């Protein structure tokens, strides 16, 4: 307890040390008053203004406690405190001023009592934040509509609500020297791999930064391959998806003030899975999965293939199509690669503008932009209609990828493939494809090769392929994915088919 200031019996000294720490903090409310029948026991309360409502004070636990202690003698007050006479469940005792300060900053009220060598906290209503709302970015056709909130406590509760099991562990870790942001690691003890958990904790502890305001900061500071455009964590704002991940043996990291959780480890296949994949029938889901995989290829390769075919390898397409393309391009002043890049950049601008502009205007931008870029540019012969179709299809395909960050990687790769195709045609696409597969083959997420379940992993039973391109019927998915600890892979009793 070096450099820590102990809580002493003399309340004035405690007050002095405490107020010195929070000098200039107008949002911290401090009250000193007397307890006891004879008003001979000094008491000091401090809290952040909005986290403990004044209006509620009289009806709150704090108010009840103060009223009760005003009826007691001095000796009874100390006994009352020791025995937790009011039966407060969410209370704790602190022996240093620093601990007291930390606790107050989490949104609780702290109480010093003269003659007591410890301070204690009473839970407040917490910081203001959005309540549980509907998920905005992860829409599903079936399943829960809840989304995470900005409070790590509430988020933990949302997962706990779905896994009512004492084996569900929540480890709290603070990150950020000054922000002291609370993070919670949620996992199932006995199912999650201990080495992964240890690695996560280690990486979290290694983070030494001023402030962590969002889980995205933690993601970037914890990932091992920072150069890769492919995410090594999966983010979700859905509690049911997080709970599902926990049941698979993965670990969920919740960060205070972030309505998004991080799931780890991940693999390539997990980015194509959505929660409602397991709520719908296997045929429908299988078709949707295949569409997503095909869409990911189209999102990355379609413009490049268009360039390769039209500039280098016209023999690939039927004659009628080639002639139609050639006729459509008559009069266009730019080379095909410039056309494609112009249209792609325009689309990226539209996408960015649509995200930043609030409310209904955001949707309007899409329509206006589409009209201007699509119709007017074609009529002005700035671009050919074929390129508009190619870019539109590419955009649609990228939207079909369930995870936005994962889809962003494809958007980046798309430009690289366009340049490769523009210079080297299909040969360039093949070379870039080889480099991409090479990169993915070497990528890992907390030790899990990124390309599982398509590649061998020690101890892997290849069962995970049942839930990859095609999702087999639920009764066949009786094993957990390879994220789970060895020996704990069975999650369902096998059923006769």
């Amino acid at each position, binding site marked *: 307890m070096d450099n820590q200031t102990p809580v002493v019996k003399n309340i004035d000294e405690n007050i002095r040390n405490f107020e010195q720490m929070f000098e200039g903090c107008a949002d911290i409310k401090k009250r000193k008053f007397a307890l006891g029948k004879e008003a001979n026991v000094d008491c000091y309360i401090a809290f952040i203004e909005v986290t403990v409502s004044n209006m509620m004070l009289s009806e709150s636990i704090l108010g009840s406690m103060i009223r009760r202690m005003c009826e007691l003698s001095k000796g009874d007050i100390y006994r009352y405190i020791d025995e937790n006479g009011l039966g407060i469940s969410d209370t704790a005792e602190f022996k240093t001023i620093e601990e007291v300060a930390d606790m107050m900053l989490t949104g609780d009220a702290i109480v010093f009592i003269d003659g007591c060598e410890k301070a204690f906290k009473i839970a407040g209503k917490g910081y203001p934040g959005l309540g549980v709302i509907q998920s905005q970015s992860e829409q599903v056709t079936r399943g829960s509509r809840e989304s995470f909130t900005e409070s790590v406590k509430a988020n933990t509760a949302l997962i706990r609500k779905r896994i009512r099991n004492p084996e569900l562990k929540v480890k709290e870790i603070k990150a950020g020297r000054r922000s002291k942001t609370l993070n919670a690691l949620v996992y199932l003890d006995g199912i999650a*791999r201990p*080495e*992964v958990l240890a*690695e996560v904790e280690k990486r979290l502890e290694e983070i030494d930064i001023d402030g962590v305001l969002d889980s995205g900061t933690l993601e970037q500071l914890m990932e091992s391959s920072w150069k890769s455009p492919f995410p090594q964590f999966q983010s979700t704002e859905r509690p049911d998806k997080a709970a599902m991940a926990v049941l698979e043996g993965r670990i969920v990291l919740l960060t205070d003030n972030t309505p998004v959780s991080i799931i780890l480890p991940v693999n390539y296949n997990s980015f194509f899975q959505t929660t409602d994949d397991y709520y719908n029938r296997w045929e429908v889901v299988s078709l949707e999965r295949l569409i997503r995989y095909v869409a990911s290829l189209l999102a990355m390769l379609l413009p490049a293939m268009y*360039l390769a075919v*039209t*500039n*280098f*390898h*016209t*023999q*690939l*397409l*039927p*004659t009628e199509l*080639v*002639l*139609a*393309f*050639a*006729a*459509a*391009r*008559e*009069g*266009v002043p730019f*080379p*095909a690669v410039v056309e494609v890049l112009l249209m792609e950049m325009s689309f990226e601008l539209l996408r960015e503008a649509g995200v930043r502009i609030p409310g209904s205007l955001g949707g309007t931008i899409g329509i206006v932009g589409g009209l201007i870029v699509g119709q007017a540019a074609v009529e002005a012969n700035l671009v050919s209609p074929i390129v508009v179709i190619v870019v539109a299809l590419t955009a649609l395909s990228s939207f079909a990828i369930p995870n936005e960050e994962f889809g962003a990687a494809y958007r980046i790769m798309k430009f690289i493939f366009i340049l490769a195709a*523009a*210079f*080297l*045609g*299909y*040969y360039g696409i*093949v*070379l870039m494809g*080889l*480099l991409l*597969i*090479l990169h993915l*083959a*070497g990528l*890992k997420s*907390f*030790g*899990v*090769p990124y*390309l599982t379940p*398509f*590649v*061998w*992993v*020690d*101890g*892997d039973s290849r069962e995970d392929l049942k839930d990859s391109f095609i999702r087999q019927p639920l009764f066949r998915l009786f094993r957990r994915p*390879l994220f789970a600890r060895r020996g704990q892979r069975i999650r369902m009793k096998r059923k006769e088919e």
Partner: protein
Amino acid sequence: MFAQNERISTRQFKRLLTLELFGVTTALLPGILCKTVQRDGVTALAGGVLLVFLYGLLLKAAAKRAGRSLQQTLKEKKKVVYEIFLLVMTIQMILMGIWVLTLAAELSRDILLQEMDLRVVICTFAFVCVAGALQGMECRGRMAEILYAFLLLPFLFFLFLAARKMNLDTMQPILTEPAKTIGKGSYEVFIVFQGVTLGFFALPYLKDQKDFWKGVKKSIWLNGLFCLLLLVVAIGIFGIDGAANQNWLAVNLMTTPDFPGGLVERMDVLMVTIWIVALFFFVSGSIFYGGKMVGRLFSMKRERTGLWILSALIVAGSILMGNKDYAYYVYMTYMKYIGVPLLLLLLFFICAGLRPKKAVAGAMCVFLALSFTGCAKGVELEDREFVLALGVEIQEDKVLFYYDTSNTQDGSGEASQEVVRIEADAFYELTSAYGQQSDKYLDYNHLKALVIGKNLASDADKLSELLQFIEQNELFARNTKLFFSEDAERIFSLCTSMNTALGEYLENLYVDSDYYVEGQSASLGDLIKHRHEKEETFLVPVLKAGEKQPLIDSYGIVRDVQWIEKLRPQEAELVFLGNGVNIKETVKVDRTYAVKINNVRKEVAFSDDKSINAVVTLEIRGQLKNKEAGKQKREIETEMEKQLEENYGQFLIDYKALDLFHLFRSLGSHNRQMWQQYHEKRAEFINQCQVTFKIKASIE
């Protein structure tokens, strides 16, 4: 954490080794075997694969002895042997790497980037291979695991599609070449399969070393099987000489089948990916293993230094040699006289109890790419003129070209047709003659039909010259439809009055037609194949100008690379029927009954009791079109049989000497003894052979 670093599973090992061997063996062996061993390519391949198996057993024994001790220090007294072994292997890796890198670069350039500087292709390809080597064994194993099915399944699918067009008579009988020739061929197979040694160097990375032999065995027999299938199909389609004279036999094979669906026209561009990726595995493997050996040989402190050095040597060597044939010659010479004998000796030493030093070290070399002349020239679509039909004729000393091209410049958004006539001095001006009067790039990728004028078709030397030019430059797809014409200019002048392009019209004659079938058409590939098998005759449709569009009015007989005679359509139908082609012919029996032929099956039997006899039996199934058969069905059948047999008898009087029914070619697959007697006496056989047609008609 989950995956052990630098360890690959048995499955990954098998797939990696299979892919490493696949590119080299399938790209080269069928062509080499056709050239050196001719008819007994299959036998030589089988012998060579057997040799490779034996070699694999030797590797297995050495692996068992060496085990993980490849990484352990050799005892002092045996150090020299080990150093020699490493040196021999390093040289082999370098030469193999140079050869295969050049091969891959030439293949990519020839199929995908015709106007690109080879050095740029070498550098870009090497860049990717070095990146692959840098990533290590684990990544290579995973890549192979994922790409395996994506490469081999399309290959097998296309082979299956191509196999439907093959004729196995051309390769029978086997075991007719001298044993020495077959032996040489087998040894050549063994040398090309030397890439299996890469598996030996993958041994320390194998998770379960007991599975080493499983992986080696599987990759050998799988690649042997692929080569065999490729060889058989290639010979069946191109003939032995045709197959021997092609640069990229395996890829050209992919242009022969018609891809169902109509979405994609030609598949060679996409299918070449299979070989590019397979060769990538080979080259990156050579760099990876070779780099470690270099590092070990020179005791380099930093693991990657050896790999950098080796990469630089391979790329420099590839650029300096500049030609796959030369690189192959150097590699083959080294392996034949030094590499293989030494290697075998050293492996024996290892089996006898040596414990080699640590042979693995990482070293890498990245080469600067794109430091040479610019990148490939891509031509925009609107700057291309697509040639849909091409006519070639000779007139005195001049060569006449007729181009039926598309024109998109009128801004209507649709393509219209244009015919251009150009005079030139020689065939090689085919591509440049048009360019002198046009600002557009002439694109032959959509050529549908080639029309050869009578003067040219009747001149064997000139026609040979044209075909040689086309074959060497690989200008046109081999499935381009072929026609003759007595007046090519007149045919092309009809373009302006036709609703569709001439090329498309001619191509579509055989698609969804009520009269013509594919078996009645001739292709450029047939003519090129004929150039190598001059004595085989075949028919080419002859066009005549109709009122608004050309018509097929007769068939030209081609022999000795020239058009020698014309057949009337009825006579040509007899030939097609006699060759088992299911023509859509209606036979008028006794001037009363019309029998539509639905199916025909041909069988040939040879005997030589007193003279050579060939009996061609045609089983014809047909349908009566104009009347009810009733009880007269058998009478109609008998009448039809008699009528057709008479027709054939009459036909053979005039045309027996031309062997239009390919009896000589069929001899090998039906009567080995007779073939051995007459295989170099074709004319004598045909002269002496008494041909009889037996018809078995069956009316439904």
